[in-house]
């Protein structure tokens, strides 16, 4: 019941907002819908905590500790982003960058995007996972090009084509998976793509086929994660769209994609009886961290800067999942949570900062602290958090990952540390120049909604200082599930 | 080997010699009909050859002996090829020599001598034609070899008579690989025999000609031999195609004159259809610029390799 509400609220909401159009209160409806989704997510989570794993609709959907925590996170960030986007979009309208039609498109697609991410997270069917991820991409392509500027069109085109091609590889991987599963689970095809069934028999799946399938799946979903060298589309798409879209793309869609990769990895590793897939994931992760740290130095656009930072963090998460083991997986899950919260908070402040300056170029943004202290502090604190300053949650997860790396993969630790240092210097120097100094900006026509920013940052701080025991249990359950025993 | 067998072999070669100009005439006549022109007589090539044999030969002062020898070598190579190709029967005495790869070599000898002779005099057009001809040959040969490989993979032999026999004996089936190679072979045939789209046999514009440019210095009996050899070449290629793709109708195994006589009508029918088909192809396609010829040959090669790959994968 809660589950049906969880998926149907945003889906029907998308239709409603498409019909509602640009009438007044569309933004409020958007918030209300997101809130409903969030409530449903909480209810589902409570049920999973109390009753254990759930399946629904003939096992087509299922919830276990791993995905239910992502569902809650997604619904939460979805809610805060909708709150943030209300004043943000109004300001954009007044600046003349949006028309009513485009606002309607934005609201409707936003809800559709949420639906597709939730479907991708909760589906038990590996085929549906693919369908939902592709649909999530498609629903955001037109959002990336919402401003119709040449740059945004180029970003949208890259996003569409590169992710399309990438995800086509994932489809082939899924076909191979089905091919292997069909031999074990029977040709009727009822259960052969259901993850729970696959996981139960993963030891019997044909290793050669699954090995090949993983190569395709990793390339396919890895493109969506933005793992280097498949990351080309990501900075463009995240930088050129409206800021709320950047926030959900960076904060949520990347999580969903890496969730898909990890699901596949569990199956493949069970079949191969080796840690090769993990090793590959680790290498990809490390490469992403290093490359993005280097690219960070060349960024002049503030949103591109943080988009590259997303690649870096996805690399860290992939690396952690690749290392495996209960602690590393725990840390990876924690990092997914805190990155999501912090990155979306940063994009919120960045969005308003850019609106103030009338430009996304770093050199045009100056003196945020003197102009609007809340935005300035938000950006400063958010950046410190994402860079892994101690009291924040990112520090906790990165610390865990680094210590585990020292123990399990000592060779990787210096590389990781160095890359983190390089990234730190790059981002910090730029943020400093934006926050301090003299301002040139103008007043915004509407008061920005910065509650989400500080809510997110408070949560991240909380997670850094103290992880509530039930949350820790929950992470542990998920982590041990990913380890696979 | 019995005398009858040798006699049959001799008759087959004789038939090739006689039918070759007729086939050429038939193709030209078909082409004329398809283009709404009044067709020349089918027998025109005979008249041409006969006329040339009655003329006095004029040879350039700078010609070396090679120039005089070349027509005989080319003609000889073509006759030898005609003897080897199982156009009417597969049980003839030359059967053991009928290796497809050797056949390609035999055709290459003819080409080499022809090109050398064309360059021998040292005129610009001869050299130009020779160079172009070598380029096309260089591109066509791999494609032709690929075609032969596919056929030999299907029947596990490179002997042309055996390939033909196996195909006849096997139950009828769809062979996508053979279909692809047949396309490639047709393209090779067009290119090697100086037909449109690669060359125009009827051209009189020196800059675009390939085959004709090589014969500019020849006259009388030498020219007659060269033209007869060209007709034989076309005939031979057609017969290789029949052996590889449509061997039905040729007498299998038997060496008797009676069996040969029976296979003659089948050959005539196949030649008639092939001639019409060639004329049709030449009518619907436009002559390519010389520089586009590599593209044409690359496509032929692609078809042949595709046939090979499809065969390897699908076993068909």
């Amino acid at each position: 019941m809660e589950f049906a509400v969880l998926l149907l609220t945003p889906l029907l909401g998308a239709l409603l907002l498409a019909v509602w159009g640009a009438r007044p209160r569309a933004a409020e409806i958007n918030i209300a819908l997101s809130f409903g989704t969030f409530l449903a997510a909480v209810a589902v989570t409570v049920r999973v905590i109390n009753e254990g794993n759930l399946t629904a609709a003939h096992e087509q959907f299922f919830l276990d500790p791993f995905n239910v925590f992502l569902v809650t996170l997604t619904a939460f960030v979805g809610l805060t982003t909708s709150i943030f986007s209300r004043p943000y979009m109004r300001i954009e309208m007044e600046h003349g960058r949006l028309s009513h039609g485009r606002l309607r498109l934005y609201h409707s697609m936003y809800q559709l995007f949420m639906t597709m991410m939730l479907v991708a997270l909760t589906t038990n069917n590996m085929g549906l996972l693919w369908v939902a991820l592709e649909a999530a991409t498609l629903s955001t392509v037109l959002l990336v090009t919402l401003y119709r500027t040449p740059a945004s069109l180029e970003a949208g085109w890259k996003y569409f084509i590169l992710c399309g091609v990438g995800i086509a590889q994932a489809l082939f991987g899924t076909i191979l998976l089905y091919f292997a599963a069909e031999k074990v689970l029977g040709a009727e095809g009822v259960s052969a793509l259901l993850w729970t069934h696959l996981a139960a028999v993963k030891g019997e799946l044909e290793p050669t086929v699954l090995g090949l399938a993983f190569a395709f799946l990793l390339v396919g979903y890895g493109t969506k994660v933005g793992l280097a060298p498949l990351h080309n589309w990501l900075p463009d798409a995240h930088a050129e769209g409206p800021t709320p879209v950047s926030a959900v793309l960076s904060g949520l869609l990347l999580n969903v994609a890496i969730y898909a990769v990890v699901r596949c990895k569990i199956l493949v590793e069970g079949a191969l009886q080796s840690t090769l897939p993990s090793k590959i994931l680790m290498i990809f992760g490390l490469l992403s961290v290093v490359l993005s740290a280097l690219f960070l130095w060349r960024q002049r656009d503030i949103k591109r800067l943080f988009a590259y930072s997303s690649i870096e963090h996805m690399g860290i998460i992939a690396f952690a999942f690749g290392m495996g083991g209960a602690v590393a997986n725990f840390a990876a899950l924690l990092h997914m949570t805190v990155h999501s919260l912090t990155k979306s908070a940063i994009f919120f402040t960045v969005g308003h900062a850019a609106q103030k300056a009338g430009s996304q170029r770093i050199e045009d943004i100056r003196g945020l602290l003197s102009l609007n202290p809340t935005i300035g502090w938000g950006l400063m604190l958010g950046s410190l958090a994402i860079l892994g300053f101690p009291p924040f949650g990112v520090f906790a997860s990165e610390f865990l990952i680094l210590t585990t790396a020292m123990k399990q993969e000592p060779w990787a630790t210096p590389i990781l540390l160095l890359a983190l240092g390089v990234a730190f210097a790059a981002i910090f120097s730029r943020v400093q120049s934006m926050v301090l100094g003299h301002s040139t900006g103008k007043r915004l026509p509407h008061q920005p909604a910065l509650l989400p920013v500080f809510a997110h940052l408070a949560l991240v701080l909380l997670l850094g200082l103290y992880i509530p025991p039930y949350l820790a249990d929950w992470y542990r359950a998920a982590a041990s599930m990913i380890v696979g025993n | 080997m019995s005398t009858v067998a040798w006699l049959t072999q001799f008759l087959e070669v004789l038939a090739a010699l006689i039918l070759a100009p007729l086939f050429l005439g038939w193709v030209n006549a078909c082409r004329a009909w398809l283009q709404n022109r009044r067709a020349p007589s089918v027998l025109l090539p005979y008249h041409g050859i006969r006329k040339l044999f009655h003329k006095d030969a004029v040879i350039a002062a700078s010609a070396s002996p090679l120039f005089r020898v070349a027509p005989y070598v080319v003609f000889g190579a073509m006759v030898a090829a005609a003897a080897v190709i199982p156009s009417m029967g597969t049980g003839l005495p030359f059967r053991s020599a009928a290796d497809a790869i050797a056949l390609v070599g035999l055709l290459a000898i003819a080409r080499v001598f022809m090109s050398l002779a064309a360059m021998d005099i040292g005129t610009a057009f001869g050299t130009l034609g020779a160079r172009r001809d070598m380029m096309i040959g260089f591109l066509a040969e791999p494609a032709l070899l690929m075609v032969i490989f596919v056929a030999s993979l299907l029947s596990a032999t490179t002997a042309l008579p055996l390939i033909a026999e196996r195909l006849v004996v096997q139950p009828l089936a769809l062979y996508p690989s053979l279909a692809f190679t047949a396309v490639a072979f047709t393209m090779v045939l067009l290119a090697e025999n100086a037909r449109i789209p690669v060359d125009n046999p009827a051209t009189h514009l020196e800059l675009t000609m390939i085959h004709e440019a090589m014969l500019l210095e020849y006259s009388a009996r030498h020219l007659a031999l060269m033209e007869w050899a060209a007709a034989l070449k076309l005939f031979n290629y057609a017969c290789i195609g029949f052996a590889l793709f449509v061997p039905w109708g040729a007498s299998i195994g038997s060496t008797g004159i009676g069996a040969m006589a029976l296979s003659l009508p089948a050959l005539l029918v196949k030649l008639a259809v092939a001639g019409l088909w060639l004329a049709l192809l030449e009518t619907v396609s436009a002559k390519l610029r010389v520089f586009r010829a590599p593209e044409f040959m690359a496509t032929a090669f692609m078809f042949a390799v595709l046939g090979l790959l499809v065969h390897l994968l699908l076993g068909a």
Partner: protein
Amino acid sequence: MQHTPFDLQLLNACAAILLLLSFAMLAQRRIVALVNLLALQGAMLFIATMLLAWRTGQNHLYVSAALTLGLKVIALPWLLHVLIKRLNVQWDSEPLLNVPGTMLIGLVTVVFSFGLAQPIAELASTATRNSLGIAVAVILLAFITMITRRKAMSQVVGFLSMENGLFFGAMSATYGMPMIVEFGVALDVLVAMLVLGVFFFQIREQFDSLDLHNLESLKEDQ
């Protein structure tokens, strides 16, 4: 050589023609012809699916055959033709590589994909398992088609051709995916094309051309 039944021969022929069409698309420069080749590829896929459905008696294959016919033979080519007409993009520019070069790369790709598919094909129990290599080849050839083109429209055609290859791969390895997935994929493809249609008009409105040269300004150091 053992004798293969006639319907299987036909299926093999379909597979071979699919491969041939992929090569034709690789070499084709004109966008209208490219779309027609795509439709032809869809038609081959439809015939192959029908044959397979008839051969194996699996009813869901009839459904996916119908889906193929409706979507890949009729709807998408029609949509693309309309787009071409409305946007007035009749000609494609020269591809980045010349034709013989592309052909050679294509042939190497086919060899590679046959090698790739070999271990899987050996494990498969379907009668069509040999076509798996062809499916992989079609996918990779479509990929090359996309790489070597500059125009947005031809890239999209390459993308759809890749989808055809994927579909054919699913069919030859496992007689198709579960119905729900197939419907989902078909829906995604359809939506993708609609999004694209909108997208093309946006690009066109902005640049007056569909040449992707225009979309190359987002470099690292702008």
